[in-house]
């Protein structure tokens, strides 16, 4: 018992820097009175750092032949090394799942011996869960760079999601910090899975019997603040992953200093949480509010404003389209008003069919009026003063919301 607990301590600790914990996007049904289903994407608890715990997120092994500078598991790091057996991971997953602790398993690993040796064991774990235990919970496998096409394909048949973390937004960053890793070793499997997902989806349209293949799609993660990239660089890379590889999610992970390597921010330096938060906000705005990277970060503005969120920054740069009449403005424009979210927009659009909406209604809908008031007109609200400058509005909003900033506030909506 002690042995398994010690392994869990090490291998959960080493896996925690992967921020993804999503368990939604798949709708695996419980077939023939088996165990589990997916689709609810439940966060079963939250760690003290406020992150969702939905999956058992562990490394299979923290033995690694590579030496990526930003990673605790790197070869040259002097740490305790250990590995779970295939059966140990299976038992932990099943027993945690049966107690309703988790939605499923998120398995990654250091590279033992070589890519295929490692990937084969990971696939075996997924296969055992699915076939021996009739397990229909969520399985996320983090693919090993350089894994063969056959193993990637097998992984796709058992997993709900596959990910491959690109980690370094630029090629230069990768060369500098992860000299063993080749970009191609990551891109080739990602492209293979993208193509196969499309293929399976097409076949399923014709034949119902075609098995599911990575139903929750692919994701990746980039580290923020380990090297010198701008926010614009990062957003550009993320956009490419969304469009080219149809990624379901790109995660941003503020670099947590773990070594004294002089290529990296020193131990004890702050995790760039605010920057990470801005990136999530922008990511969200791009996916659901119709903003583009070039709108949020034009070439002249390579970094997000630390004081205000990307939506408000954009609005202040584009005051000419405001104020908007809440009772008549088009949905695509309402989406751009600071302080008004998707839920409120839905309520505004429904509510205004029944009658004129007033300030009172907007407040009851949960709209952040101290922001929105500068950009809208409606009954009960005095016209926004036309001649306020951008800086004055920013000042007024900041004064009214001091201390309200909650880290990770966008992540709440996301997970």
């Amino acid at each position, binding site marked *: 018992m002690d042995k398994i607990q010690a392994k869990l301590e090490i291998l*959960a600790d080493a896996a925690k820097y992967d921020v993804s914990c999503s368990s939604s996007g798949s709708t695996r049904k419980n077939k023939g*009175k088996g165990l589990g289903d997916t689709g609810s994407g439940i966060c079963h*608890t939250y*760690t*003290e*750092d406020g992150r969702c715990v939905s999956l058992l997120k562990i490394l299979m092994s923290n033995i690694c032949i590579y030496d990526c500078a930003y990673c605790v598991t790197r070869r040259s790091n002097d740490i305790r090394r250990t590995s779970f057996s295939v059966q140990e991971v299976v038992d932990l997953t099943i027993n945690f799942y049966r107690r309703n602790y988790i939605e499923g398993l998120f398995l990654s690993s250091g590279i033992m011996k070589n890519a295929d040796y490692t990937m084969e064991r990971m696939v075996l774990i997924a296969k055992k869960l699915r076939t021996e235990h009739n397990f229909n919970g969520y399985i996320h496998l983090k693919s090993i760079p350089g894994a063969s096409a056959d193993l990637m394909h097998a992984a796709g048949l058992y997993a709900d999601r596959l990910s491959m973390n690109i980690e370094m937004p630029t090629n230069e960053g990768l060369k500098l910090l992860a000299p063993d890793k080749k970009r191609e070793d990551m891109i080739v499997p990602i492209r293979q899975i993208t193509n196969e997902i499309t293929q399976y989806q097409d076949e399923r349209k014709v034949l119902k019997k075609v098995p599911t293949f990575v139903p929750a799609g692919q994701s990746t993660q980039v580290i923020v603040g380990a090297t010198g990239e701008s926010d614009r660089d990062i957003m550009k890379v993320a956009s490419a992953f969304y469009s080219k590889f149809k990624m379901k999610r790109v995660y941003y992970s503020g670099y947590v200093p773990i070594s004294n390597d002089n290529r990296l921010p020193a131990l004890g330096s702050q995790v760039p949480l605010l920057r990470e938060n801005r990136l999530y906000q922008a990511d969200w705005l791009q996916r659901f509010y119709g903003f583009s990277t070039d709108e949020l970060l034009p070439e002249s503005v390579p970094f997000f404003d630390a004081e205000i969120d990307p939506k408000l920054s954009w609005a202040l740069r584009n005051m000419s389209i405001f104020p908007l009449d809440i009772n008549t403005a088009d949905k695509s424009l309402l989406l751009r008003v600071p302080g008004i979210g998707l839920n409120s927009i839905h309520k505004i659009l429904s509510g205004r069919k*029944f009658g004129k909406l007033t300030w009172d*209604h907007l407040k009851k809908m949960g709209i952040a009026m101290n922001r929105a008031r500068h950009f809208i007109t409606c009954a009960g609200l005095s016209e926004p003063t036309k001649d306020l400058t951008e800086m004055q509005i920013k000042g007024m909003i900041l004064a009214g919301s001091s201390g309200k900033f909650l880290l990770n506030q966008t992540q709440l909506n996301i997970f």
Partner: protein
Amino acid sequence: MDVLVYDKTFEGFLSAVFYVYEYKLADAHICKEAPGTVMFGRTIQIDTDEAKAKRVLAGLSKKLSHEGLQAIYHAYLADTLQEEDTMLAYIRHALASDHNIEKDYSNFAVLRMQRVDCMVHRERHRMKAFIRFKLTKDNIFYDGIEPDFNVIPLIREHFEKRYADQQWIIYDLRRGFGIYYDLQKVETITITFSEESQGADSILWMDQNEGLYQTLWQQYFKSTNIASRKNMKLHIRHVPKRYWKHLTEKALM
């Protein structure tokens, strides 16, 4: 003012609504318990009548969609909020109107009902998340909970689908009833806890491996946390303190 007291059942509430319409009461309040004193007006004890309840539902279903009816049921399950007056106002608005009013957010009862529905939904979601089964010696996975609202009826199907190959019990300690799945079907049950069983979570009940998995889960919870990102405010917002008592990972190690 008339105060209508019903027996805490949904049918009872609907019978009270029937009464309001039968006697054309303009100023009526519906509640679960008779208030100590009513200064101006009467207190009326409502007899629950299934036939009348059905008639109210039938009338409402001509004016409301499935979701609209569900919103009323959910507000009823929010038993600790005492939203009967909002529910009545919502029903009056729905019946008086010649079109569907569910999205009429210019009406304050509609807005409030929407809010209550959200709160019930959140509590339901929490209970899907916060159930922590413990394996008993009888090979039944058991958990006792104390939810803010009466959400067991709303989570039953989720657990029935998910845990189809194990026996389980979810028990509402606050309201004194639970549900039991015996591998075939789900039944409503009540349990009489003996003195020695110390309520619910005693190790006397537990399977010999149960302690091991609890320890491993606590270990995992600790190890997966990133200390340098600590944010207790956010943590507590997601996992409010009143739930800690029943969460294995928050129980004292």
